[in-house]
């Protein structure tokens, strides 16, 4: 009984670790200089990014055991991107909620005005504290 439970938990754990990598940059045409930065991060297993004229939003999936350093990882990647894009406002987040919000933007393929509105909404959400 105990053994089977243990095996079950291990299978769950391993199954969760091998989830496939998801790397999306939206819109995809100006992704060239962001991609190499994200590619060399070894603490994340996926990212979804939205870019418009002013902002860069990057929602990252942090590896399970690197999540202890979530705040540090966010800061580090933000700095690297800011170096590459000094004229844009950069927001890097490991928050699941913001990841979902970014996914909806990509799914709906929002344009211009709506895109800007959603980005503002996400930025507001990320500033909220308990």
């Amino acid at each position, binding site marked *: 009984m105990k053994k089977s439970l243990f095996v079950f938990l291990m299978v769950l754990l391993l199954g969760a670790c091998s989830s496939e990598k998801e790397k999306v940059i939206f819109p995809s045409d100006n992704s060239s200089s962001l991609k190499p930065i994200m590619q060399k991060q070894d603490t994340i297993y996926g990212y979804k990014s939205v870019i418009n004229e002013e902002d860069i939003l990057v929602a990252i999936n942090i590896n399970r055991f690197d999540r202890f350093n979530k705040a540090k990882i966010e800061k580090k990647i933000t700095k690297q991107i800011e170096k590459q894009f000094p004229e844009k406002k950069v927001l890097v987040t490991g928050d699941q909620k913001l990841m979902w919000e970014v996914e909806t933007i990509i799914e709906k393929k929002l344009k211009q005005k709506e895109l800007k509105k959603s980005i503002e909404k996400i930025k507001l959400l990320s500033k*909220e504290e*308990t």
Partner: protein
Amino acid sequence: MDQQQFQKIVDEKNPKVPFFMNILKAFIVGGIICTIGQLITFFYMRFFPFTEGTAGNPTVATLVFIAMILTGTGLYKKIAQIGGAGSAVPVTGFGNAVISAAIEHKSEGYVLGVGGNMFKLAGSVILFGVLSAFVVALIKTILVNIGVVSW
């Protein structure tokens, strides 16, 4: 009969506390409660504008609400018999202590009964929570001011 013999008899007569069984039960019951909490957190994040950082508060409130139902119907007592610390340590255990005391003393009226006895069991938790928060914040602020640590 000297002290040692007496102690030996006492040990024999007392029921053996099944140490590892208790720990395992606490682990499983506590784990399940926290997993339910995580599901509730996901629910609030999915359908309401809460982030990982802010979803904790509504989750705790919802769990205390569930604890209210379970306490009122007498089910939480049964969970506590199985789970031991596994049911006491999560915030539902704190809720159970407050709510059961409130229901218990309802007959004495809402001011003296409910209001006066609500925190009979849980009051020490609040006392030490606030007190230790004050002491820790004070020590850390002083240490920062004299430059030993940073924020």
